């Protein structure tokens, strides 16, 4: 498969910007935790800082003339992603892609 799994920089993003489980939740399978109650950010993250730091982390230089539009698009992505982030999923629901050795 030609599947990409993102850039793996999640820790650089302020916790309030992420739709992640609380720390440790992923390991507590027996508790069958639903996703964290706080599924989407209550507070708007500092998008400019987030974008600048994340870009550094993956070695992507964003020239000043591109930056404003990258911020617009990042903000748009946060809005479009919201309905997904609000969905609750059961722990046993694994991703759709199947790797066949």
């Amino acid at each position, binding site marked *: *498969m*030609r*599947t*990409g*799994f*993102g*850039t*793996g*920089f*999640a820790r650089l*993003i302020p916790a309030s*910007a*992420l*739709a*992640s489980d609380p720390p440790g939740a992923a390991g507590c399978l027996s508790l069958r935790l639903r996703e964290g109650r706080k599924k989407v950010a209550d507070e708007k993250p500092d998008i400019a800082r*987030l*974008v600048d730091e*994340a*870009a550094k982390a*993956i*070695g*992507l*230089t*964003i*020239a000043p003339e*591109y930056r404003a*539009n*990258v*911020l*617009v*698009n*990042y903000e*748009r*992505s946060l809005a*479009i*992603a*919201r*309905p*997904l*982030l*609000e*969905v609750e*999923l059961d722990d046993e*629901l*694994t*991703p*759709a*892609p199947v790797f*066949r050795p």
Partner: protein
Amino acid sequence: MSDPLAKQATASEIAGAVMSGKVKAAAVVEAALTRIETSEARVNAFTDVVADRARKRAAEIDSGLHRGPLAGVPFAVKNLFDIKGLPTRAGSKINLDGPIAARDGALVRKLEAAGAILVGGLNMGEYAYDFTGENAHYGPSRNPHDPTRMTGGSSGGSGAAVASGEVPLALGSDTNGSIRVPSSLCGLFGLKPTYGRLSRAGSFPFVDAFDHLGPIARSVADLALSFDVMQGWDPDDPVCTDRPAEPTVPELREGIGNLRIAIAGDYFAQGAEPEALEAVATVAKALGASRRIVIQQAAAARSAAYVITAIEGSQLHLPRLRTRPQDFDPDTRERFMAGALLPGAWYVKAQRFRRQYRAQVQKLFGEVDIILAPATPCTAPKIGQVMMKLGGVELPVRANLGLYTQPISFIGLPVVVAPLQRPGGLPIGVQIIANHYKEAAALRVARHLEKQGVASAPPA
């Protein structure tokens, strides 16, 4: 039957005329090349014309070397398909510095094996990250019904080439709606098959999780004919199904029979301009369909499709974003850059949700065989238009032309777009959605609408 040399001629009519000896393939190809030369200034559909190759192939067909159900049919492909001897542009300037294709893409080979003749490569939105058909490097493809308007994208050249009558058949790709959106805005029949049904080998990727290839044509018979010859397992595409080919041409005669047809409500009935909903109502009435169903979580499905697309597509292009950002189309560059920075957790959640959503929709297909939905929320916007009003809300054109297509390709369902011509107005399409591997059912419904005169391609 139209004159096989006329621009309105369908692929089936041309093949019939060539096989019966009524016309030479060479004459058909010359007529197509002349039309391309005449129309290009108006529609900007082609980036590459392979005239010598097409003439050579036509001569071989006329000498009896190749026969097949598409004998002598000129066709063109979105320029993300490999064409032997050319760089695979994928709508970009960067790829011109890449390798020259050593062989044709798998589907080009299959169409040619059936007697069709490739005449060129078609314009598209850069790297397929596009719903408009615009391209900063090669200019926008233009809607033949009104050249100031978008074709829709990203298979914009495919829509323009067929709607203008340059060729009767074109191939496009559809990751989130890129066959269905131009089919709707250019008023053509389009088929996005089941995910994995047709080989993607020898095409430039965008989002592996959702990339599909398929035909755009002026008749349902042409969709079925081309789809049938392109089916079959291909070890060069790991996603390609090993199910045996299921010919759809014989099924077209079946009519709609006992197919249970429903209209998608809720998400698919909101946020559209009146003409999009009227088109669905017209089609439903012609089919005698009144049942409304709700595809649960369609908004989240669109959202998840967006997230997977942004992250996978951006990851694919990250090396080029690092080294050659100035060579990207400005309209894709900053979207790719933003996508490269999105949280990986979103991607995994979107993939997990995909399974849940598939199960829900599969359950619906226990109750119905076909679901009708708008293909686009509006008719073709103006070229260069950035914002549009949908349901009274101002929204970006680029992100929203695929509002109704994304939740469907997200789980790989097959869809035929049936075009409705609107006297005095621009055309618009309706999605005829079937369960996985049931392309024949969607084609049968489209054929019924075509026979009734409800759906049709416009006069070229």
